[in-house]
């Protein structure tokens, strides 16, 4: 007589099998050094790091200046930047495509369906994120700090340097947020890059392709690789951030 019915045992659903398959496939792809996956990984890293770096070079200095200086329509500008933080990547992709079309205003650049176009679109996505968080972090400091430093005889540039140093934890959080906004997006790179094999295919667009084509285990494997990549970069950035916290 059966004391324990089969229905109490977990059923092997399609979902469970696929995830296990995905994990195994992901490990195999990385350890075996699959050429195609590695080149996609490399391109993803390059595009995201390049666009985040440029976004930081624009966002941090301008954010700092906007935070400390008084000028007309300051609140309006900060509102615009904050709205920019939530820009839907697919809308950015559409707008950039329209500009880069052959017959569009920037058509002469011939950046559509190239890596340069993808980096441009991602800069537009990441810069408001970095800028907005920089503004917020500097405004979070003691209001009178800037004036105090100036009154002690520092120049404007020295004063800004000290303010940024004071807020370095939050500034690094801004960098982390900027990177996160571009490594995870698919709308902009899909539209502006075109997901062309060997040329503009990155991890997120490849995941969409594999899903569409029905290769679920491959899509899951790529998803896990993407998460691992994102985790590694953020690990490094967070370590830098936390070491400065001491």
């Amino acid at each position, binding site marked *: 007589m059966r004391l324990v019915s089969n229905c109490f045992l977990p059923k092997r659903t399609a979902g469970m099998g696929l995830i296990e398959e995905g994990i195994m496939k992901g490990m195999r792809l990385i350890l075996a050094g699959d050429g195609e996956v590695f080149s996609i990984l490399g391109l993803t890293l390059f595009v995201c790091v390049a666009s985040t770096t440029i976004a930081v070079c624009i966002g941090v200095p301008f954010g700092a200046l906007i935070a400390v200086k008084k000028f007309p329509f300051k609140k309006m500008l900060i509102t615009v930047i904050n709205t920019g933080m939530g820009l839907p990547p697919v809308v950015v992709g559409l707008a950039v495509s329209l500009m880069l079309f052959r017959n569009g205003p920037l058509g002469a650049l*011939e950046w559509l369906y190239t890596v340069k176009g993808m980096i441009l679109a991602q800069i537009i996505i990441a810069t408001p994120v970095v800028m907005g968080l920089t503004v917020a972090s500097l405004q979070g400091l003691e209001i009178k700090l800037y004036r105090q430093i100036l009154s002690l005889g520092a120049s404007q540039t020295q004063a800004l*340097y000290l303010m940024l140093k004071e807020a370095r934890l939050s500034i690094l959080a801004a960098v982390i947020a900027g990177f996160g906004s571009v490594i995870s997006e698919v709308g902009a790179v899909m539209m502006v890059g075109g997901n062309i094999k060997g040329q503009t295919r990155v991890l997120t667009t490849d995941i969409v392709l594999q899903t569409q084509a029905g290769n679920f285990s491959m899509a899951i494997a790529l998803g896990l690789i993407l998460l691992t990549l994102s985790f590694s970069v953020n690990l490094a950035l967070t370590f830098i951030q936390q070491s400065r916290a001491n």
Partner: protein
Amino acid sequence: MFPIPWKHAWKGLGFGDMHKRKGIVPSGKATRLLCMLFVSGLLSLPEPEAKSPDTVILATTTSVQDTGLLDVLAERFNKKGEYRVKPIAVGSGQAMQLGRRGEADILLVHSPEDEDAFMKEGFGLKRTRLMHNEFVLAGPPNDPAKVKGQNNITEAFKKICLSKAVFVSRGDNSGTHKMELSLWKVAGCKPAAGLYWETGQGMGQTVRVADERSAYCLLDRATFLTLRKMLRLVIVSEGDARLKNYYSLILVNPRLSRKINVSGAQAFHDFMLSGEVKELINTHRNDAFGQQLFFTETDGGNGSH
């Protein structure tokens, strides 16, 4: 304008005391890891070529991409080195829109009525039939509309209208969508509101929706074969002459824009009609499915207009 305080951004990120460090390599394991990741990213980029090949933009459909055929063909063409094709898989509707605007050099589409209009309006220079396969009607195994065995597709569609079954459509102006709409027109009916769903997405997603909700769906045989393993849907109607799915190459009319790569488009066109490519297309993934996915036209493409 504000002077850009690069120095402060640099220092703000904590690199300010680099001049005090012993070497130029940043200390701290984390910073080094970051630099290594960045450099490895740079190194894994493909080498820029000495002379960048001429770009040819090919606008085509998702069904050609999903079966993997597009990547194989593009790679083979690019190996020749003279031109570099950029295949953009967007669906026949958008492909022809791009053609109209002169944003693509050559199209590979499968929407005959729209293609006719496209050619008639003068947007296309030359149209050549490249290959074909078939559409099939897929449905749930229990077949609520009792369509199974009805190989006259018009009658099959009528049966679906009369039943309470759901039909899932692409709804995105693609070749498949246009074929489906033409079949409803011939059948003289359409499922009632609430029983006709439009996903607006690619073939894979659309058929999966149909699979999940035990609904009917029209799709090309190649996609069905590719996804068969994970679907519960079965083919309920096939073989009708109306279900032939023709893919055509269309050279975009150079008069639309000076930026159209005429020689590149012609080179790709000739490549696609060459013997070696026909062989490639006819044997694409045959071993995986035990049957042919695409059939090239044997008469050299008599669909030229």
